[in-house]
């Protein structure tokens, strides 16, 4: 080591291009510990969910050759330097540079970016929004997260749907989404209606004027149409707790607040409740811990205890438990939900006790001294 500090030097003196990663030994370590199944006989899932197996597909045998993919950083900070296209080694960084530098000035280049993304950057999870230009609005809207889909499946199972029906319902969702992606790919690129990105988004429809506060462009034309899956019996999802009755408790099936709006449930049910009342009995299940060490009190493990207080549940929600929701209804319809939320909040505001006339906030303009001193209710913001 030629450095004057020798061993004491705080800097790494390396000669290789990718020093740090090898110094830490990660490459060798990962390989040696890698004992994974290589699912060569996996059935391709035509719907994009991956393979039908309970374990993840991974190519243990391919890992070595794909080593480069596990060094994402090495190309990252070259994004500011001019890159020569066609250099396969820096293809990844090319992608990065293009993605980073893409400006939506020319629909053709946007299209190219989309084509490239769909070729190289298609994640396994398909129920997603997509934007080709970072920090720009989505070209495809309608996110569904793992948890939302899972909850819908659990709710369906609780209602007696078979696993097969659930899988089919999910595949329908997938198909709709794939169509959206295909459309974006095949049709000439048209920029989405510009979402105001900022500030005016929450107030879109309050006074009836519809601002372009939407980053979900054609929600009513969304391919997420009503999916009416006929209920079938047969499959009972394995109860996850010893006492299964918890599943039958109340309706928690909501993928978006749209549902609550549709059923008229609004904030006032909770917001104006004077205090928590105990309306729902608490289901106390036995502790899954068979051996309990001393230390914590075990009060909360006694079954049947009703010592908890719960928020007053909306009576409407209680009645929902008895309604049969037709499977996965409108999955994402943000505009509708926004509107219904707004209407719900308008209702709430009428009930709220304000000192003044809140219609002042509906004006288009205020003259000197006209703005009330108290802040406007949240819904007007």
């Amino acid at each position, binding site marked *: 080591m030629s450095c004057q500090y020798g061993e004491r030097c705080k*800097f*790494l003196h390396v000669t290789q291009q990718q020093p740090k*990663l090898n110094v*830490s030994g990660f490459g060798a370590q*990962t390989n040696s510990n890698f004992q*994974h199944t290589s699912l060569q006989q996996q059935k391709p*899932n035509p719907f994009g969910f991956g*393979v039908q197996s*309970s*374990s*993840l597909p*991974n190519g243990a*045998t391919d890992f070595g050759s794909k080593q480069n*993919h*596990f060094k*994402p950083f090495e190309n*990252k900070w070259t994004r500011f330097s001019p890159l020569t296209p066609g250099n396969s080694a820096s293809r990844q960084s090319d992608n990065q540079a293009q993605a*980073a530098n893409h400006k939506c000035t020319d629909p053709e280049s946007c299209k190219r970016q989309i084509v490239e993304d769909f070729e190289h950057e298609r*994640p*396994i*999870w398909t129920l*997603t929004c997509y*934007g080709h230009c970072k920090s720009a609005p989505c070209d495809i*809207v309608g996110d569904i997260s793992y*948890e*939302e*889909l899972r*909850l819908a*499946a659990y709710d369906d199972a609780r209602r007696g749907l078979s696993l097969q029906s*659930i*899988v089919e319902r*999910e595949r329908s969702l997938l198909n709709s989404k794939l169509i959206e992606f295909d459309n974006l790919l095949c049709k000439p690129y048209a920029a989405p209606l510009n979402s105001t990105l*900022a*500030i005016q988004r929450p107030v879109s429809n309050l006074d009836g004027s519809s601002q372009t506060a939407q*980053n979900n462009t054609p929600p009513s034309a969304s391919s997420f149409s009503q999916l009416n899956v006929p209920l079938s019996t047969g499959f009972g999802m394995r109860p*996850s*707790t010893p006492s299964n009755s*918890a599943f039958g408790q*109340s309706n928690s099936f*909501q*993928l978006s*607040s749209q549902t*609550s709006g549709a059923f008229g449930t609004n904030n006032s049910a909770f*917001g104006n409740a004077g205090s*928590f009342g105990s309306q729902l009995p608490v289901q106390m299940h036995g502790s*899954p811990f068979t051996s309990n*060490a001393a*230390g*914590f*009190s075990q*009060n909360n493990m006694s079954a049947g205890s009703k010592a*908890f207080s719960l928020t007053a549940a909306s009576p409407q929600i209680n009645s929902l438990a008895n309604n049969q929701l037709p499977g996965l209804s409108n999955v994402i319809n*943000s505009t509708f*939900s926004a509107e219904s939320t707004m209407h719900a909040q308008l209702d709430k505001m009428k009930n709220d006790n304000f000192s003044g006339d809140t219609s002042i906030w509906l004006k288009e*303009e205020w003259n000197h001294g*006209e*703005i009330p001193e108290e*802040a406007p209710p*949240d819904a007007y*913001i």
Partner: protein
Amino acid sequence: MSNFSAANPNPNKSSEVAQPPTDSVSSLKFSPKANFLVATSWDNQVRCWEITRDGTTMGSVPKASISHDHPVLCSAWKDDGTTVFSGGCDKQVKMWPLLSGGQPVTVAMHDAPIKEVAWVPEMNLLVTGSWDKTIKYWDTRQSNPVHTQQLPDRCYALTVRHPLMVVGTADRNLVVFNLQNPQSHFPENALHLVKPKERSIMQEHSFVHPITRCLNALSFPFTKNSLRSFFNYNAEFKRITSPLKYQTRCVAAFPDQQGFLVGSIEGRVGVHHLDDAQQSKNFTFKCHREGNEIYSVNSLNFHPVHHTFATAGSDGAFNFWDKDSKQRLKAMSRCSQPIPCSAFNNDGSIFVYSVCYDWSKGAENHNPSTAKATIFLHLPQESEVKGKPRVGTNRK
């Protein structure tokens, strides 16, 4: 290896936590004061273990648990380590004073499942984020939220380091909040909305009068859109669209609050700085990919001491990274199932992660009869979590 062989469920030789949940784990949180671990699960339970350590030998002692009526999605500890908050698909948050053996009580409710919960000690408030497109702030002694904040879409991720709060919603929105900005005071960051000659008036009045009196002192007419802008600036600091292209999965605020990380389903993490002057330091990097398979980043956790961070993904791997030197410090071996959540303990000496199905391939990959959840404890070595200086002559 062309034959199907049993995948190693524990390739990293981590310690297993005893009596794990019977269904997938949705969140893992260590107490800020001691090595008590809480896990929430799709089996509706919230469990707490005491994690013991004797040299390199880890132990776990089940302590207590409570039930929700529906799957539990999130959890948070109070800063004094006495109380746990848990929320989920029953649209409630329960406050559980487990250290004293107290009963849980419901302290928050939403119109849709609660995806995220955080305790903000600086404000003595609980923050909840829900699929009903709102954030609510709660004083746990009151039944009504202190404030309800509308979001552009469903809350998918949340991180708080006071006064910075970042919320990731569906459709790639990221909303940045300045929690120091009380509702009624004029926000400094909205000064640009005011005509220059009026700015001094606003600043003069800003901490004395409600914003509306300030506005009344200005020249008029004042249009509705501008007024909306003011009040929205009160509530939010900034709304940005994700630098990533696909669905947001997780966010984590920098320990120094200068920015945040965002992880998505596309095997990518964005490093974003809040200050306009630091935008050149923003970048994204790929991770959790295997060949052509692109997995999601499910969890982002900063090391409490070294301020490096860990990512955990649907590919069943977890990695340690240093954003300042832009290095991956360590890639751990892939487990046979995804890792939906992970956490460091309060001093960073323990990294906990769960290996269980996260629904990343839908219902068809879920086998209720064989599904299991494992919670592993990993003792990070210094080389894995301590930042490495940049190669070269420029000092950090």
